């Protein structure tokens, strides 16, 4: 026999054509349209007409939009970092609880995912407001002299983004953390490591891949948030997503909005690539 049979798989190969077709139709085609719009010629006071010019991209290279990009990325990176730093110890703790407690906590976390950005945004802006917020509580127990508002502010914005991102971070971390062999930690302990040393020297390095995954997910997820920055942030905290919406809908400048979207996507892709490169497990080859 000279002919090598193709390896048999449980699922026929052609089944992959279906998602490929759907991805092409609903992702690549719109992306192509966006690319072509980003180089189109803008008609002042009108819409745009087909063309090829770099005007929208060149406009992007101003200090103003450079700052907007930096703010956007900075806020998303901060939110991702805070979420992972909070979610990891939480998940490690969760994984050490009994099965039934774990299930209950996970159900609560999943139910948080059903809340829309709008509900979270308005709840937080009420909770942090001067008239009805926690400032009244602080004043009542004498922590501050008079009730004050904590929104809009960077703190309020990050709180909202972390509220959104935290369940995702936990869900990404949960499976690998709960699979961690408890004997690994015990081995470190018997060999002389304190609890903290075992955690940072063994558990964290072993979970580097999962931590990177959670970080990237929350980062990308919050990068697209455009409601919370307007509800909870000051204009200085407006992210690129907000400006894209502003340009596309209120300024009727679709080529510029498209150019910003393309740019945002490229920067995000570059960061995700960098992060996954840094998070790659040295042991897996």
């Amino acid at each position, binding site marked *: 026999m000279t002919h090598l049979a193709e390896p048999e798989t449980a699922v026929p190969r052609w089944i992959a054509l279906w998602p490929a077709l759907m991805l092409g139709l609903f992702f690549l085609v719109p992306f192509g349209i966006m690319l072509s719009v980003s180089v189109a010629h803008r008609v002042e006071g009108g819409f745009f007409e087909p063309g090829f010019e770099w005007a929208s991209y060149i406009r992007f290279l101003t200090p103003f939009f450079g700052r907007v990009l930096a703010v956007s990325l900075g806020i998303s990176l901060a939110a991702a970092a805070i979420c992972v730093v909070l979610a990891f110890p939480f998940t490690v703790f969760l994984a050490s609880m009994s099965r039934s407690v774990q299930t209950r906590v996970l159900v609560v976390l999943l139910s948080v995912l059903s809340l829309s950005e709008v509900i979270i945004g308005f709840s937080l802006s009420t909770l942090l407001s001067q008239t009805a917020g926690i400032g009244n509580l602080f004043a009542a127990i004498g922590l501050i002299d008079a009730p004050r508002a904590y929104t809009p502010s960077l703190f309020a914005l990050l709180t909202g983004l972390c509220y959104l991102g935290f369940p995702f971070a936990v869900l990404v971390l949960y499976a690998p953390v709960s699979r961690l*062999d408890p*004997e*690994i930690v*015990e*081995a*470190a*302990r*018997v*060999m*002389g*490591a*304190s609890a903290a*040393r075992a955690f940072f020297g*063994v558990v964290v*390095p*072993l979970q*580097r891949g999962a931590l990177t995954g959670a970080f990237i997910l929350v980062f990308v997820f919050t990068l697209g948030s455009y409601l919370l920055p307007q509800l909870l942030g000051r204009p200085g905290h407006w992210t690129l997503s907000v400006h894209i919406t502003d340009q596309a809908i209120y300024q009727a400048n679709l080529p510029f909005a498209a150019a910003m979207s393309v740019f945002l996507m490229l920067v995000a892709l570059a960061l995700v690539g960098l992060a996954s490169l840094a998070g790659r*497990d*040295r*042991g*897996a*080859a």
Partner: protein
Amino acid sequence: MTELRIEGLSKRFGTYLALDDVSITIPNGKFVCLLGPSGCGKTTLLRLIAGLETPSEGRILVGGTDLSAVPSHKRGMGMVFQSLALFPHLDVAENIAYPLAIRGTDRATRQATAARLLDLVKLPGMGGRRIHQLSGGQRQRVAIARGLAIDPKVFLLDEPLSALDAGLREHMQIELRQIQQSLGVTTVVVTHDQKEALTMADLVIVMKDGKVQQAGTPMEIYHAPANAFVADFIGNTNLMPCRWDGQAIEVLGHRLAPAEGDRIAAAPGLAQLSVRPEHVEIAAPGTGFAAEITFIRDLGESVHFVTRCGAQVITAQVAPGARPPFGVGDAVSLSFRPGKRVVLA
């Protein structure tokens, strides 16, 4: 001297009593096997010694020092886990030197120790390998080397060879025993494999339901089991209900007078007679126990005749050279070799 003493140790998990008032003394430099079926408390005992569990009652003393208030990471023990628990993010040498790194030992000493231990476990020059590049047997050796890195007071191993296939396991048993003898470290191994215990141990501690059934040398345990459970668990044996009246053993309708070497470890009354298959003699029908052969198992090294004597199944083992010319269904006569019969409570 690092004698390991366990005094009245008990461990409860909720209402479940995993370990019930265990007291053992393990002399310095001895190799001890904790042997028993799963759930007998042997792993719990090992984890208590390592400080991974807190005793409900009792004390553990190493070299006369009470370890009750000493946390796990300050007990100075070496341990090999069932899953081996090697760190995949470190290479082989870093794994072995991990306990030294924790103690702030300098780099040169760490490397020298790792190299010395790799020689000891016959993996010279493998320090730079990653864990996932090693075979199961090599990982086993690395775990053993890591457990010995700090010259532990006590070396603990939890079913260390259970993941290896049979041939490699027997080889590692011998090697582990040789390493232990060359270092003279007090060693406690948990196992459910009686052959493993008999191969390696100076002292075998047979456990069941959280209690010590018998502690003794392998040959004491084999030839003079303290009770029917130990007799049955260590090696194969024929256990038959009998009555000991102080004069003779009544079994399967026969009265047997005890001979020189027979052990009577039961008060007069109902008891169990234990006779190992190699001490059952098989002959043409005669004055012995009338039985019928139901199965013949020829393992090459030995031949087992499974017979039925009334409702009692009795196995006789003979050397292949001395194989009697009987077949399945043949009527035979069995006798129990005098001096090799044990009456147990």
